Protein backbone atom coordinates (compact mmCIF):
# COMPACT_ATOMS: atom_id res chain seq x y z
CA UNK A 1 0.00 0.00 0.00
CA UNK A 2 1.34 3.41 -0.88
CA UNK A 3 1.53 5.91 1.93
CA UNK A 4 0.77 9.51 0.94
CA UNK A 5 2.76 10.87 3.87
CA UNK A 6 5.91 9.57 2.20
CA UNK A 7 5.15 11.55 -0.95
CA UNK A 8 4.92 15.11 0.32
CA UNK A 9 3.87 17.19 3.35
CA UNK A 10 0.08 17.35 3.82
CA UNK A 11 -0.33 20.96 2.72
CA UNK A 12 1.33 20.08 -0.59
CA UNK A 13 -0.05 16.57 -1.07
CA UNK A 14 -3.67 17.69 -0.67
CA UNK A 15 -3.64 20.09 -3.63
CA UNK A 16 -6.58 21.07 -5.83
CA UNK A 17 -6.62 17.74 -7.65
CA UNK A 18 -6.53 15.66 -4.50
CA UNK A 19 -9.14 17.90 -2.89
CA UNK A 20 -11.48 17.39 -5.82
CA UNK A 21 -10.98 13.65 -5.58
CA UNK A 22 -12.12 13.77 -1.98
CA UNK A 23 -15.46 15.28 -2.86
CA UNK A 24 -16.25 13.40 -6.06
CA UNK A 25 -15.15 9.88 -5.29
CA UNK A 26 -18.15 8.19 -3.69
CA UNK A 27 -16.00 5.43 -2.30
CA UNK A 28 -13.85 7.87 -0.33
CA UNK A 29 -16.99 9.67 0.83
CA UNK A 30 -18.60 6.44 2.06
CA UNK A 31 -15.48 5.25 3.84
CA UNK A 32 -15.08 8.63 5.55
CA UNK A 33 -18.71 8.65 6.64
CA UNK A 34 -18.49 5.14 8.06
CA UNK A 35 -15.32 5.91 9.96
CA UNK A 36 -16.93 9.07 11.33
CA UNK A 37 -19.99 7.17 12.54
CA UNK A 38 -17.76 4.62 14.24
CA UNK A 39 -15.66 7.40 15.81
CA UNK A 40 -18.86 9.04 17.10
CA UNK A 41 -19.90 5.74 18.58
CA UNK A 42 -16.56 5.50 20.38
CA UNK A 43 -16.93 9.09 21.63
CA UNK A 44 -20.05 7.98 23.53
CA UNK A 45 -21.56 11.45 23.71
CA UNK A 46 -24.70 11.94 25.80
CA UNK A 47 -27.82 11.23 23.73
CA UNK A 48 -30.11 13.95 22.40
CA UNK A 49 -27.76 16.74 23.26
CA UNK A 50 -25.97 19.10 20.91
CA UNK A 51 -22.28 18.77 21.60
CA UNK A 52 -19.47 21.10 20.62
CA UNK A 53 -16.86 19.05 18.77
CA UNK A 54 -13.46 19.53 17.20
CA UNK A 55 -12.71 17.85 13.87
CA UNK A 56 -8.94 17.54 13.56
CA UNK A 57 -7.88 17.43 9.93
CA UNK A 58 -11.39 18.15 8.66
CA UNK A 59 -10.32 18.32 5.02
CA UNK A 60 -13.22 19.06 2.72
CA UNK A 61 -15.69 18.62 5.55
CA UNK A 62 -16.85 15.07 4.79
CA UNK A 63 -16.79 13.97 8.42
CA UNK A 64 -18.14 17.36 9.45
CA UNK A 65 -21.26 16.72 7.39
CA UNK A 66 -21.86 13.58 9.39
CA UNK A 67 -21.43 15.56 12.63
CA UNK A 68 -23.94 18.17 11.46
CA UNK A 69 -26.34 15.43 10.45
CA UNK A 70 -26.12 13.98 13.94
CA UNK A 71 -27.00 17.41 15.29
CA UNK A 72 -23.64 18.58 16.63
CA UNK A 73 -21.87 21.90 16.33
CA UNK A 74 -18.26 21.61 15.24
CA UNK A 75 -15.05 23.41 14.44
CA UNK A 76 -12.70 21.98 11.81
CA UNK A 77 -8.97 22.53 11.47
CA UNK A 78 -6.80 21.48 8.54
CA UNK A 79 -3.41 22.39 7.11
CA UNK A 80 -4.31 22.08 3.42
CA UNK A 81 -5.79 25.31 2.02
CA UNK A 82 -7.12 23.54 -1.10
CA UNK A 83 -9.19 21.16 1.02
CA UNK A 84 -10.56 24.02 3.13
CA UNK A 85 -11.54 25.91 -0.02
CA UNK A 86 -13.57 22.91 -1.14
CA UNK A 87 -15.17 22.72 2.30
CA UNK A 88 -16.02 26.40 2.01
CA UNK A 89 -17.60 25.88 -1.41
CA UNK A 90 -19.70 23.05 -0.04
CA UNK A 91 -20.94 25.42 2.66
CA UNK A 92 -20.37 23.12 5.59
CA UNK A 93 -21.88 24.17 8.91
CA UNK A 94 -18.74 24.24 11.03
CA UNK A 95 -16.17 26.99 11.41
CA UNK A 96 -12.94 26.27 9.55
CA UNK A 97 -9.37 27.05 10.53
CA UNK A 98 -6.12 26.80 8.62
CA UNK A 99 -3.89 25.30 11.26
CA UNK A 100 -0.87 23.07 11.67
CA UNK A 101 -1.90 20.69 14.45
CA UNK A 102 1.76 20.05 15.27
CA UNK A 103 1.96 23.68 16.40
CA UNK A 104 -0.81 23.14 18.94
CA UNK A 105 -4.24 24.67 19.33
CA UNK A 106 -5.25 28.08 20.58
CA UNK A 107 -8.53 27.09 22.17
CA UNK A 108 -9.41 28.08 25.71
CA UNK A 109 -9.46 25.34 28.36
CA UNK A 110 -12.57 23.17 28.49
CA UNK A 111 -13.98 24.28 25.15
CA UNK A 112 -14.95 20.99 23.50
CA UNK A 113 -17.18 18.06 24.43
CA UNK A 114 -15.08 15.81 22.24
CA UNK A 115 -12.68 15.59 19.34
CA UNK A 116 -12.54 13.31 16.32
CA UNK A 117 -9.94 12.85 13.66
CA UNK A 118 -10.11 10.57 10.64
CA UNK A 119 -6.88 9.35 9.00
CA UNK A 120 -4.75 12.24 10.15
CA UNK A 121 -2.34 11.72 13.02
CA UNK A 122 0.01 9.39 11.16
CA UNK A 123 1.05 12.54 9.29
CA UNK A 124 2.47 13.94 12.52
CA UNK A 125 5.08 11.17 12.69
CA UNK A 126 6.93 12.60 9.69
CA UNK A 127 9.45 15.37 9.82
CA UNK A 128 8.68 17.32 6.66
CA UNK A 129 10.98 20.17 7.48
CA UNK A 130 14.42 20.20 8.99
CA UNK A 131 13.16 22.07 12.04
CA UNK A 132 10.30 19.62 12.65
CA UNK A 133 10.73 17.22 15.50
CA UNK A 134 7.90 14.62 15.48
CA UNK A 135 8.19 13.96 19.23
CA UNK A 136 7.92 17.63 20.09
CA UNK A 137 5.07 18.19 17.65
CA UNK A 138 3.12 15.22 19.01
CA UNK A 139 3.69 16.43 22.57
CA UNK A 140 2.49 19.94 21.75
CA UNK A 141 -0.50 18.59 19.81
CA UNK A 142 -1.73 16.30 22.60
CA UNK A 143 -0.85 18.80 25.32
CA UNK A 144 -2.90 21.65 23.86
CA UNK A 145 -5.70 19.26 22.87
CA UNK A 146 -5.92 17.98 26.45
CA UNK A 147 -6.45 21.46 27.84
CA UNK A 148 -9.03 22.41 25.21
CA UNK A 149 -11.24 19.43 26.09
CA UNK A 150 -13.84 19.51 28.85
CA UNK A 151 -13.22 17.15 31.77
CA UNK A 152 -14.38 13.64 30.95
CA UNK A 153 -14.47 14.35 27.22
CA UNK A 154 -13.08 11.83 24.78
CA UNK A 155 -10.94 12.17 21.69
CA UNK A 156 -11.09 9.48 19.03
CA UNK A 157 -8.49 9.25 16.28
CA UNK A 158 -8.74 6.80 13.42
CA UNK A 159 -5.32 6.42 11.88
CA UNK A 160 -3.17 4.17 9.70
CA UNK A 161 -0.04 3.34 11.68
CA UNK A 162 2.90 2.38 9.53
CA UNK A 163 4.55 0.20 12.15
CA UNK A 164 4.56 -0.59 15.85
CA UNK A 165 7.04 2.13 16.57
CA UNK A 166 4.59 4.76 15.31
CA UNK A 167 1.79 3.38 17.49
CA UNK A 168 4.06 3.45 20.49
CA UNK A 169 5.29 6.97 19.71
CA UNK A 170 1.75 8.34 19.37
CA UNK A 171 0.28 6.62 22.43
CA UNK A 172 3.19 7.50 24.68
CA UNK A 173 2.93 11.17 23.65
CA UNK A 174 -0.81 11.08 24.40
CA UNK A 175 -0.37 9.45 27.80
CA UNK A 176 2.38 11.89 28.70
CA UNK A 177 0.00 14.76 27.96
CA UNK A 178 -2.37 13.44 30.64
CA UNK A 179 -4.81 11.36 28.62
CA UNK A 180 -5.85 7.86 29.58
CA UNK A 181 -7.13 5.22 27.18
CA UNK A 182 -5.48 3.35 24.36
CA UNK A 183 -5.83 1.60 21.04
CA UNK A 184 -9.05 -0.02 19.84
CA UNK A 185 -8.74 -2.26 16.78
CA UNK A 186 -11.78 -3.16 14.68
CA UNK A 187 -11.64 -6.44 12.71
CA UNK A 188 -8.11 -7.30 13.85
CA UNK A 189 -8.07 -10.51 11.83
CA UNK A 190 -8.68 -8.88 8.48
CA UNK A 191 -5.98 -7.06 6.56
CA UNK A 192 -8.51 -5.05 4.57
CA UNK A 193 -11.22 -4.20 7.06
CA UNK A 194 -8.89 -3.60 10.01
CA UNK A 195 -9.18 -0.10 11.41
CA UNK A 196 -7.10 1.31 14.23
CA UNK A 197 -8.61 3.85 16.61
CA UNK A 198 -6.82 5.70 19.34
CA UNK A 199 -9.44 6.32 21.99
CA UNK A 200 -8.39 8.87 24.61
CA UNK A 201 -10.10 10.16 27.75
CA UNK A 202 -9.43 13.58 29.22
CA UNK A 203 -10.10 12.72 32.84
CA UNK A 204 -12.93 10.86 34.51
CA UNK A 205 -16.58 11.06 33.57
CA UNK A 206 -19.13 11.24 36.43
CA UNK A 207 -16.36 10.42 38.89
CA UNK A 208 -15.69 7.07 37.24
CA UNK A 209 -12.66 5.85 35.38
CA UNK A 210 -13.62 5.31 31.78
CA UNK A 211 -13.23 1.85 30.32
CA UNK A 212 -11.76 1.30 26.90
CA UNK A 213 -14.49 0.27 24.42
CA UNK A 214 -14.31 -3.08 22.68
CA UNK A 215 -13.21 -3.25 19.07
CA UNK A 216 -15.52 -4.85 16.52
CA UNK A 217 -14.73 -8.35 15.37
CA UNK A 218 -16.15 -11.03 13.15
CA UNK A 219 -16.31 -11.26 9.39
CA UNK A 220 -14.52 -8.58 7.46
CA UNK A 221 -17.78 -7.81 5.72
CA UNK A 222 -19.09 -6.68 9.07
CA UNK A 223 -18.60 -3.02 8.34
CA UNK A 224 -22.05 -1.69 7.58
CA UNK A 225 -22.60 -0.72 3.98
CA UNK A 226 -19.95 -3.13 2.84
CA UNK A 227 -17.23 -1.18 1.08
CA UNK A 228 -13.97 -2.91 1.69
CA UNK A 229 -11.60 -2.45 -1.16
CA UNK A 230 -11.38 -1.58 -4.80
CA UNK A 231 -11.64 -4.79 -6.84
CA UNK A 232 -11.96 -3.34 -10.31
CA UNK A 233 -8.44 -4.15 -11.41
CA UNK A 234 -8.62 -7.72 -10.24
CA UNK A 235 -11.85 -8.21 -12.18
CA UNK A 236 -10.23 -6.85 -15.31
CA UNK A 237 -7.46 -9.36 -15.20
CA UNK A 238 -9.85 -12.22 -14.56
CA UNK A 239 -11.89 -11.38 -17.64
CA UNK A 240 -8.78 -11.30 -19.83
CA UNK A 241 -7.98 -14.80 -18.82
CA UNK A 242 -11.45 -15.94 -19.78
CA UNK A 243 -11.13 -14.08 -23.09
CA UNK A 244 -14.23 -12.01 -22.38
CA UNK A 245 -12.59 -8.62 -22.71
CA UNK A 246 -14.18 -6.39 -25.31
CA UNK A 247 -11.95 -5.46 -28.23
CA UNK A 248 -10.79 -1.89 -28.32
CA UNK A 249 -10.79 -1.56 -32.12
CA UNK A 250 -14.44 -2.34 -32.71
CA UNK A 251 -16.59 -1.26 -35.65
CA UNK A 252 -17.40 2.10 -34.14
CA UNK A 253 -13.74 2.86 -33.54
CA UNK A 254 -12.79 1.97 -37.12
CA UNK A 255 -15.57 4.08 -38.61
CA UNK A 256 -14.61 7.00 -36.47
CA UNK A 257 -10.99 6.67 -37.55
CA UNK A 258 -11.96 6.49 -41.22
CA UNK A 259 -14.11 9.56 -40.85
CA UNK A 260 -11.16 11.41 -39.39
CA UNK A 261 -8.92 10.38 -42.26
CA UNK A 262 -11.55 11.45 -44.82
CA UNK A 263 -11.69 14.87 -43.23
CA UNK A 264 -7.93 15.13 -43.41
CA UNK A 265 -8.16 14.14 -47.04
CA UNK A 266 -4.49 13.31 -47.74
CA UNK A 267 -5.06 9.58 -48.31
CA UNK A 268 -7.66 7.54 -50.06
CA UNK A 269 -9.96 5.93 -47.53
CA UNK A 270 -11.87 2.74 -48.29
CA UNK A 271 -15.63 2.98 -48.43
CA UNK A 272 -17.72 1.70 -45.58
CA UNK A 273 -19.49 -1.59 -46.27
CA UNK A 274 -21.19 -4.35 -44.36
CA UNK A 275 -17.77 -5.97 -43.92
CA UNK A 276 -16.27 -2.97 -42.11
CA UNK A 277 -14.94 -3.98 -38.70
CA UNK A 278 -16.04 -7.55 -39.10
CA UNK A 279 -13.89 -10.42 -37.90
CA UNK A 280 -12.34 -12.76 -40.44
CA UNK A 281 -13.07 -16.38 -40.10
CA UNK A 282 -10.18 -18.50 -38.91
CA UNK A 283 -10.26 -20.41 -42.19
CA UNK A 284 -9.71 -17.33 -44.35
Amino acid at each position, binding site marked *: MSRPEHTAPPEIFYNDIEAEKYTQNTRIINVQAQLTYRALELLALPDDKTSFLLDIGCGSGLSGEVLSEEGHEWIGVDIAPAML*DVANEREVDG*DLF*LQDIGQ*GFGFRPGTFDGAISISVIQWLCNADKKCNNPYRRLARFFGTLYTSLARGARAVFQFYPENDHQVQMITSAALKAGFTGGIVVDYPNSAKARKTFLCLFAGQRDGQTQALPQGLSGEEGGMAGGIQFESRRVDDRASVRKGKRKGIKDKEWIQNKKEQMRKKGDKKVANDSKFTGRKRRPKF
Partner: protein
Amino acid sequence: MVRLLTHNMLQCHVKNCTNGFPLRFQDPVIEQHEQEINKEFLVNMLPRIDWNALRTTVDQLGLPELPAAVPENPAEDEAFLAALHRALMEVNIQSGSMVCPECEHVYPIRDGIPNMLLSEDEV
Protein backbone atom coordinates in the same frame (compact mmCIF):
# COMPACT_ATOMS: atom_id res chain seq x y z
CA MET B 1 -16.71 31.84 8.66
CA VAL B 2 -15.75 32.86 12.15
CA ARG B 3 -18.72 32.97 14.48
CA LEU B 4 -18.43 34.88 17.70
CA LEU B 5 -18.98 31.60 19.53
CA THR B 6 -15.74 30.30 18.04
CA HIS B 7 -13.98 33.59 18.49
CA ASN B 8 -14.85 33.51 22.19
CA MET B 9 -13.08 30.15 22.50
CA LEU B 10 -9.97 31.33 20.69
CA GLN B 11 -6.81 32.62 22.22
CA CYS B 12 -3.35 33.33 20.89
CA HIS B 13 -1.16 30.21 20.81
CA VAL B 14 2.20 31.81 20.17
CA LYS B 15 4.87 30.42 22.49
CA ASN B 16 5.29 32.36 25.75
CA CYS B 17 2.19 34.46 25.05
CA THR B 18 0.16 33.97 28.20
CA ASN B 19 -2.59 36.52 28.01
CA GLY B 20 -3.67 36.51 24.37
CA PHE B 21 -7.43 36.73 24.93
CA PRO B 22 -9.70 37.96 23.44
CA LEU B 23 -8.26 38.46 19.98
CA ARG B 24 -9.05 41.88 18.59
CA PHE B 25 -10.72 42.18 15.19
CA GLN B 26 -9.13 44.42 12.58
CA ASP B 27 -11.04 45.67 9.50
CA PRO B 28 -13.72 43.00 9.93
CA VAL B 29 -16.25 42.33 7.17
CA ILE B 30 -19.40 41.11 8.89
CA GLU B 31 -22.09 38.92 7.40
CA GLN B 32 -25.31 37.72 8.98
CA HIS B 33 -26.37 34.13 8.32
CA GLU B 34 -29.71 33.14 9.69
CA GLN B 35 -29.72 29.91 11.58
CA GLU B 36 -32.24 27.98 13.57
CA ILE B 37 -32.03 28.66 17.30
CA ASN B 38 -31.00 25.77 19.54
CA LYS B 39 -31.79 26.97 23.07
CA GLU B 40 -30.50 23.91 24.84
CA PHE B 41 -27.10 24.22 23.15
CA LEU B 42 -26.88 27.92 24.05
CA VAL B 43 -27.64 27.22 27.69
CA ASN B 44 -25.05 24.43 27.74
CA MET B 45 -22.41 26.67 26.21
CA LEU B 46 -23.09 29.62 28.54
CA PRO B 47 -20.75 28.51 31.35
CA ARG B 48 -17.90 28.19 28.84
CA ILE B 49 -18.37 31.65 27.40
CA ASP B 50 -16.32 34.51 28.76
CA TRP B 51 -19.10 37.06 29.09
CA ASN B 52 -16.95 40.18 29.43
CA ALA B 53 -14.88 39.23 26.40
CA LEU B 54 -18.05 38.65 24.37
CA ARG B 55 -19.45 42.04 25.35
CA THR B 56 -16.18 43.76 24.44
CA THR B 57 -16.14 42.09 21.02
CA VAL B 58 -19.80 42.88 20.34
CA ASP B 59 -19.11 46.48 21.28
CA GLN B 60 -16.02 46.59 19.05
CA LEU B 61 -17.95 45.29 16.05
CA GLY B 62 -20.73 47.83 16.62
CA LEU B 63 -23.42 45.19 17.09
CA PRO B 64 -26.50 45.58 19.34
CA GLU B 65 -25.39 45.58 22.97
CA LEU B 66 -25.80 42.54 25.20
CA PRO B 67 -26.97 42.74 28.85
CA ALA B 68 -24.23 43.50 31.41
CA ALA B 69 -24.57 40.14 33.10
CA VAL B 70 -26.09 36.75 32.36
CA PRO B 71 -29.58 36.57 33.89
CA GLU B 72 -30.03 34.18 36.78
CA ASN B 73 -32.25 31.78 34.90
CA PRO B 74 -31.14 32.05 31.27
CA ALA B 75 -33.06 28.97 30.10
CA GLU B 76 -36.38 30.74 30.59
CA ASP B 77 -35.41 34.17 29.35
CA GLU B 78 -36.55 34.03 25.70
CA ALA B 79 -35.47 37.56 24.80
CA PHE B 80 -32.01 37.00 26.25
CA LEU B 81 -31.54 33.72 24.37
CA ALA B 82 -32.67 35.29 21.11
CA ALA B 83 -30.17 38.14 21.50
CA LEU B 84 -27.44 35.67 22.46
CA HIS B 85 -28.23 33.47 19.45
CA ARG B 86 -28.02 36.45 17.11
CA ALA B 87 -24.65 37.49 18.46
CA LEU B 88 -23.04 34.08 18.92
CA MET B 89 -24.32 32.03 16.00
CA GLU B 90 -25.48 34.37 13.27
CA VAL B 91 -22.67 36.90 13.07
CA ASN B 92 -19.92 35.73 10.73
CA ILE B 93 -16.63 37.47 10.14
CA GLN B 94 -15.78 36.90 6.48
CA SER B 95 -12.47 38.70 6.19
CA GLY B 96 -10.13 41.01 8.05
CA SER B 97 -7.77 39.81 10.72
CA MET B 98 -7.52 38.95 14.40
CA VAL B 99 -4.76 40.51 16.48
CA CYS B 100 -3.42 39.20 19.76
CA PRO B 101 -3.75 41.90 22.44
CA GLU B 102 -0.44 40.89 24.06
CA CYS B 103 2.10 39.84 21.44
CA GLU B 104 0.42 41.61 18.49
CA HIS B 105 0.54 38.49 16.33
CA VAL B 106 -1.83 38.91 13.37
CA TYR B 107 -4.06 36.03 12.28
CA PRO B 108 -5.42 37.00 8.85
CA ILE B 109 -8.91 35.82 7.79
CA ARG B 110 -9.37 34.93 4.12
CA ASP B 111 -12.75 33.78 2.74
CA GLY B 112 -13.90 33.27 6.31
CA ILE B 113 -10.98 30.93 7.13
CA PRO B 114 -8.52 32.28 9.69
CA ASN B 115 -4.90 31.42 9.08
CA MET B 116 -3.61 30.14 12.44
CA LEU B 117 -0.19 29.02 11.15
CA LEU B 118 2.80 30.23 13.13
CA SER B 119 6.36 30.66 12.03
CA GLU B 120 8.93 28.28 13.47
CA ASP B 121 10.31 30.70 16.07
CA GLU B 122 6.81 31.24 17.49
CA VAL B 123 6.24 27.56 18.35
